[in-house]
């Protein structure tokens, strides 16, 4: 196989012979040119103390000092890191749980199902900025709709300063994020649910396993691959949340919503401490990179083994159900 095509290929013109690499060149150049140069430059910056004299930027090599400072002298890094961690865990968990629950509801047959499913696209397609502005307006302490509604329903007596206390503000940002991101889980979960053959459930119900049991035994294992991918990607993206807090809270009050991305931006562009900001961004990157490796592994597995696995799974389940 190897020698024959080679001879043939030599006769082909250069363009045809190297068509593959030629076709990928523009895309590769753009992707790696735009993304890879900066990521290495950021590493360089993180290892330097950077100051300014007129038009000049002075780099003074500082080793790991910027990284050490994050944990010793930086007043807000630790709290910002913890807040981010909390935010990521809470939003991702909530989105997946609510998303799966809602997808189960929307997977039932009812009038107007197509319409309701279509509706799920609305929050997903909306610009994040508009989402943030919308919720900031709803949670406005003086004239917001949240207060208006709760007052009208008699659930509260005086207006709440939603974004004014640390816990409330965190909750509001959390809510805004969940509203926007959950539909994505719902859409993917519905797609995954539709691949589960009906007869599996029928077999299970003969077996006496309805409702919860069927969910744990059939539904969850069948949509697990999708959920796993969602879990990883959602986690990575939640770590990068910026727009929401930039618009809704500016990281406050009391740093309760000072997510890392926002804090890094603040240190870089407001305090012009490029070295520290680059160091922080590298800490964040490392977390995302680690998650990405897991993601790529899982994604590849899913791509290659998904069908095999599902078939195997199906066979086993069906056989099990019939035996019973």
């Amino acid at each position, binding site marked *: 196989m190897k020698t024959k095509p080679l001879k043939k290929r030599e006769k082909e013109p250069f363009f045809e012979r190297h*068509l593959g*690499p*030629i*076709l*990928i060149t*523009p*895309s590769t150049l753009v*992707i790696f*040119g*735009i993304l890879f140069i*900066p*990521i290495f*430059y*950021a590493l360089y*910056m993180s290892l330097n103390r950077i100051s300014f004299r007129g038009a000049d930027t002075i780099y003074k090599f500082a080793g790991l000092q910027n990284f050490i400072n994050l944990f010793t002298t930086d007043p807000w890094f630790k709290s910002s890191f913890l807040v981010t961690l909390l935010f990521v865990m809470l939003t991702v968990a909530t989105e997946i749980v609510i998303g799966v629950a809602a997808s189960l*509801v929307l997977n039932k047959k*009812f009038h107007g199902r197509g319409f309701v*499913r*279509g509706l799920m*696209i*609305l*929050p997903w*397609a909306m*610009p*994040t*900025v*508009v989402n943030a*502005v*919308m919720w*900031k*307006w709803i949670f*406005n302490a003086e*004239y917001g*709709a949240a*207060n*208006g509604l709760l007052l*009208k329903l008699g659930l509260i007596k005086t207006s709440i300063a939603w974004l004014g206390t640390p816990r409330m503000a965190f909750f509001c940002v959390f809510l805004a994020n969940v509203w926007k*991101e959950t539909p*994505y889980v719902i859409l993917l979960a519905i*797609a*995954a649910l539709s691949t589960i053959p009906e007869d599996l459930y029928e077999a299970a119900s003969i077996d006496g396993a309805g409702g919860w049991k069927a969910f744990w035994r059939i539904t969850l294992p069948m949509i697990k691959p999708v959920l796993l991918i*969602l879990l990883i*990607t959602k986690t990575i993206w939640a*770590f*990068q949340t*910026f727009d929401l807090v*930039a*618009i809704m809270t500016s990281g406050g009050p009391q740093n309760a919503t000072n997510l*890392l*991305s926002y804090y890094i*931006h603040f240190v*870089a562009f407001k305090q012009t401490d*490029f070295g520290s900001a*680059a160091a922080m*961004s590298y800490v*964040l990157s490392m977390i*995302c*990179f680690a998650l*990405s490796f897991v993601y*790529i592994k899982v994604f590849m597995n899913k791509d290659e083994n998904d069908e095999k696995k599902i078939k195997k799974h199906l066979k086993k389940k069906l056989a099990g159900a019939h035996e019973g």
Partner: protein
Amino acid sequence: MKVKKVLNRTILYFLVALIIVITLAPYLWLVISSFSTKIELMSRQIFLIPHNITLANYKDLMSKDFIPAAMNSIIVTSSVVVISVIIGVLAAYAFSRFRFRGKNPLLNLSLFTQMIPPIALIIPMFIIFKRLDLINHRITLVMIYLSLVLPYLIWIMKSYIDVTPKTLEEAAMIDGCSRLKSFFFVVLPMISTGLAATVIFSFIITWNEFFYAFSLTKTLDAKTLPVLIYDFNSKFGANYVMSATAGVLASLPPVLIALLFQKYIITGLAAGAVKE
């Protein structure tokens, strides 16, 4: 048994209604706000239909930099969509059909790039683009957005091309078509669904992008709609009415397109994870 069924249906419809209300209500309030007067919005009442339905906010908006920002959004988005589809589909084809050294590592790396936090890129990017005098240019945004959209597009299109049978293509080549020709006339029509999905995704991702635009555009020469909306929201201009109005307008294109072409979106979503 029947009672139980009725009960189940009732619970189901209740849950569906709940989902609808939760999804629609916040956005509806944004739309209502955009048609209301500022004084009425500050009356601490909530209402479905404002007493004085007004288009004044929209008129105001038109005089407040909305049109140039919208033009920037349109130009950047359409450039990204067109360029990304052309070079992305060709690359996807190459990744699917050809064997060459470094193929798999490249593919994995491109997937990996989607996971790099933008905040880690923006600081060096800002300095590099500054030296190249590329701050505040639409072309800069186009290049960055291409790098965001392409990896995803290549993955999806590759998965579509992977499942199209090679035999048809080979038949065309035997008939004397060149490789590229057979791709255009045989493969491309077969993957049009995937193509539609990726075009829509590229559009939505690009149109909605805020972070890079916020950091790299300074004036209306390049500022896109999300940045304009942010501006309405900052110091000396926490202008909720304007934000709401601009928000409604800016969200219309992606929302409408997504609703109209939801079929493609769902197939596209199933093919791979899309960053929103």
